């Protein structure tokens, strides 16, 4: 009985189809078409702007710095020039490395950039055989291990010895500590 009642009622209700109104349809098509066309000029501009994110980092090559025989156990400061391409501006900036030998006599080269906030460190300015940064008193051992203030050891240059000369390459995290 109750079943019959229900189906009777259903028959009297207006059919409810999930229809899209004409206005909605037009809004969607026009909106979609406009968005598609707007992408034409907008996408190139965005790709243009984010290009630095998507270009590969330029490979640094090894540069001849000093005769190997000149390198001592005591760190010494050596300057060398790299060729740098910065967009449309090419230059040969001067870089500095602190080069010395470890206990086994292997040559290694530390970057002078303080790992605290990027000032420039110096060797043994306080007669304690340590690297010292004048900005906030960071200290490092001869191997570049951070003793105070700085959160990380000094970075080092990749070293290659060719024909009795020291060549320096890209900067990498410290391998000695």
């Amino acid at each position, binding site marked *: 009985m109750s079943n019959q009642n229900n189906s009777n009622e259903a028959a009297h209700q207006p059919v409810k189809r999930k229809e899209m109104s004409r206005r909605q349809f037009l809004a969607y098509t026009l909106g979609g078409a406009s968005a598609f066309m707007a992408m034409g*000029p907008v996408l*190139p*501009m965005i*790709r*243009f702007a984010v290009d630095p994110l998507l270009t590969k980092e330029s490979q640094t090559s090894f540069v001849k710095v000093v005769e190997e025989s000149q390198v001592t156990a005591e760190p010494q400061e050596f300057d060398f020039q790299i060729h740098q391409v910065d*967009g*449309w*501006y090419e230059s040969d900036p001067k870089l500095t490395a602190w080069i010395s030998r470890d206990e086994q006599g292997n040559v290694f080269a530390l970057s002078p950039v303080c790992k605290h906030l990027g000032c420039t460190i110096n060797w043994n300015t306080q007669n304690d055989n340590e690297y010292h940064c004048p900005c906030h008193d960071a200290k490092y051992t001869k191997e570049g291990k951070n003793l105070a203030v700085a959160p990380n050891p000094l970075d080092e240059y990749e070293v290659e010895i060719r024909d009795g000369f020291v060549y320096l390459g890209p900067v990498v995290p410290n391998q000695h500590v």
Partner: protein
Amino acid sequence: MFKGIYNWIDERLDITPMWRDVADHEVPEHVNPAHHFSAFVYCFGGLTFFITVIQILSGMFLTMYYVPDIINAYASVDYLQHKVAFGAIVRGMHHWGASLVIVMMFLHTLRVFFTGSYKAPREMNWVVGMLIFFVMLGLGLTGYLLPWDNKAYFATKVTLSIAESVPYLGPYIKTLINGGDIVGAQTLTRFFAIHVFFLPGALLALLGAHFFMIRRQGISGPL
């Protein structure tokens, strides 16, 4: 989702009347190309504005790489066009758009002229339109120097000589535009500042006045 966000904001700030007032208005039959195809001539104003928007957008992106300096300007344009992804397209939009915007503006002016829309009560909008015209010419002129190639350099020399030919004031006008005695470093920075700050600012203000008057007075009637 967007509807939800919109409603949430609308409940608090009642923004619907604002955009309704700007966007919701009738398009009379005589300006609707769907009724009379010849009514497409009424689109030229909108097209001029559309290309102006493209100019402003592409110009903003160009300034990410461009430098207004006599040593680096050409190199930076060369770099952005040939080394940066889609550089040729973004610079192309700005380069061709600069000519196209003048064409569209000219066609729009012709429409206004031949429909007599400049007559009372719309005289002021004709005057504002003329000011927009001169600002556009100024943008074209100052932008043309920016790539700092031979074409740019000599085009600017020519323009400055023309400016110099003004009776009595000519030499002063020339020095002022030049920023010195020669077309050089000071001319380039000066043109850059005018091109990307002063004239676009003036242009936006004038466009605001233009559109405000159109909304107040409505589009002119059928012929």
